[in-house]
């Protein structure tokens, strides 16, 4: 159905998912998914639980068969291949280490099954791999005798030793505590750069995805909402879901009035708000005008008038939360809507107090426009709650 399939289009070992659908009974877990992951990428599939990201991963691994569509690896159709015939390996959620085998035997498992290497070579390779994940001295231990972080690294070594074309990671850091997770994020990134294998990383943690991946695909209800570099996704969300799920957003109802130079002019709460054409979708009529809370600067009414700033007047501070590095304000507008503003605690000026009258100001290039037909709350609870 897709003409350029066949892998002639230069994407040497790219992974291509073409129109893949997976149904469980009446439930559509993945809906006509199209995706191309370039060779050597660190690719994150980000979404809340139940969005279809793990199902997608399992179909690539061969643990689940697509109801429709094809999966190609380097141009070869692997859709119907058994899991043990694919050059793809998985780091499972909670690792799935074989409890009856030593660390060494766990790591050697894949190479032994393939039977392509001699005993001596196997030994060397296992040694090298344990060195890469810094577990040489634990070779003879059983998995149950290791800490969570160590088990995680065994799982990684067990998969990587096979030099797969694609490495799949299913919430690999989900079982680790926060501090260890930070350390492992950097560690995984380093290893990926070292070995140069394509990593596909499934996670529900937006911060983890942004820290590690060079490309993120945000999934929701079986489809990809938006795909791109972390900065692009965060700065230029194209749907209310992405705007809310990835960080937080102020979304205010507005109308596109005109286009002027490289800017759209919109009317929001009776004032004109400008949005850069670079960052916004070309929309007409009713829109959601969005701005990230940390891009908003609070000013006393009328203070610091600058032409290039968007300004919403008539706000009153309704809540102040001090969170260490920053202070988070809730500002109630005349319309009754509450907007957020996060300010770094630089100490340059006295913080506002509840009841202070304030204006909200931000740059045109930090404004984004979204289709007003989308649900303004989409993804908000998910992004926050998990």
């Amino acid at each position, binding site marked *: 159905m897709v003409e350029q399939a066949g892998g002639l289009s230069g994407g040497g070992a790219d992974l291509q998912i073409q129109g893949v659908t997976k149904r*469980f009974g009446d439930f559509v*877990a993945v809906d006509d998914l199209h995706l191309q992951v370039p060779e050597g990428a660190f690719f994150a599939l980000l979404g809340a*639980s139940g969005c279809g990201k793990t*199902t997608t991963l399992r179909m690539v691994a061969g643990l689940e068969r697509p109801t429709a569509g094809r999966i190609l690896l380097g141009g070869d159709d692997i859709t119907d291949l058994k899991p043990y015939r694919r050059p793809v390996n998985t780091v499972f959620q909670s690792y799935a280490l074989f409890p009856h085998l030593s660390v060494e035997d766990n790591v050697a498992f894949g190479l032994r099954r393939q039977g392509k290497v001699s005993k001596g070579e196997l030994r060397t390779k296992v040694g090298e791999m344990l060195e890469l994940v810094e577990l040489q001295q634990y070779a003879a231990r059983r998995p149950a005798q290791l800490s969570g972080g160590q088990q995680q690294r065994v799982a990684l070594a067990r998969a990587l030793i096979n030099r797969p074309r694609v490495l799949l990671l299913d*919430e690999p850091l*989900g079982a680790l505590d926060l501090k260890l997770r930070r350390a492992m994020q950097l560690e995984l990134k380093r290893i990926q750069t070292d070995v140069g294998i394509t990593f596909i990383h499934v996670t*529900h943690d937006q911060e983890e995805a942004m820290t590690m991946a060079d490309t993120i695909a945000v999934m929701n209800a079986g489809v990809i909402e938006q795909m791109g570099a972390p900065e692009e996704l965060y700065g230029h969300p194209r749907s209310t879901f992405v705007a809310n799920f990835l*960080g937080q957003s102020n979304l205010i109802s507005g109308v596109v009035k005109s286009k002027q130079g490289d800017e759209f002019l919109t009317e929001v709460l009776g004032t004109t708000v400008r949005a850069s054409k670079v960052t916004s979708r070309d929309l007409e009529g009713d829109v959601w005008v969005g701005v990230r809370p940390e891009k908003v600067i609070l000013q006393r009414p009328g203070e610091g008038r600058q032409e290039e700033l968007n300004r919403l007047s008539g706000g009153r501070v309704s809540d102040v939360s001090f969170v260490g590095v920053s202070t988070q304000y809730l500002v109630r507008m005349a319309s009754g809507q509450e907007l957020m503003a996060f300010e770094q605690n630089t100490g340059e000026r006295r913080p506002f107090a509840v009841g202070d009258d304030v204006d909200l100001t931000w740059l045109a290039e930090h404004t984004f426009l979204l289709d007003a037909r989308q649900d303004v709350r989409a993804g908000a609870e998910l992004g*926050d709650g*998990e």
Partner: protein
Amino acid sequence: MSALSHVPGPTGGTPDVQATDPGTERRGITGYLLMLPGTVWLLLFFLVPLVTLVSSSLYDPSGSLATGYSMTGHVQNYADALSEYGSTFVRSFLYALTATIACLLLGFPLAYAIALKAGRWRNLMLVAVIAPFFTSFLLRTLSWKLLLGDDSWVVNALQALPLVPDDLRLLATPAAVITGLTYNFLPFMVLPLYASLERLDVRLVEAAADLYASPFTAFRLVTVPLAMPGIVAGTLLTFIPAAGDFINSELLGNPRTRMIGNDINDLFQASVLPTASALSVMLMVAIVALVAVYVRRSGTDELV
């Protein structure tokens, strides 16, 4: 900011479709082939015998092993058996019921102590609970014959107590039979109770205390309902074998403490097939009916 404030539990993001994972359940003929031999064995040597038992209970009562039995649909066997052995039936169920209640009263505190108080002694205490299984049922019951004997230290100690008559006898009394039944089936009560109490979250009891429940109220309203599956399983595992047992009444009782198992066994040994079968069928039906009512009323149908 929000990302900093969340710490996912060990299960983190639930895998999308772990529950309906079809990868672990294979279709095809293999499943049937694996089931076949065991199923055939159970059909031939459990189900077919049960059917045979029912039909044997309707044979002409005048038959014998030597002359052979003839199928006459003689329902009267049941009425005859009931009139002759009805009181034994009642006695069996009373003994079994008493032993079950005794097991519950003894077993609950023990299971509670193991599950919630034993700490590092837990495994040792569990081994002690199953230790009786390590040696012969009959030998253990014979030990009670010694322990409850007329001149044993148990009886002497009891006789020394005030209010206990000096000519107290234990052996060859209903008390001895019930003591034996209680003893023999107590582990079957303790183990399921332990299994459900072990899963009990102590914080729930603390929450009840925090919400103004006295220790007894917390026990009644939180601990007992949560231990209900264990209580149901334990009472069934105790009552069913106790009702059909005849070893305890034979070794520890007297002719007036006979249980229905004694009669069924003796009648079969004497080849009085129709009456014996009728009694056996009645025992089975009575137990199945009791269990069904009991399980329904305690609201734990998922056990069976």
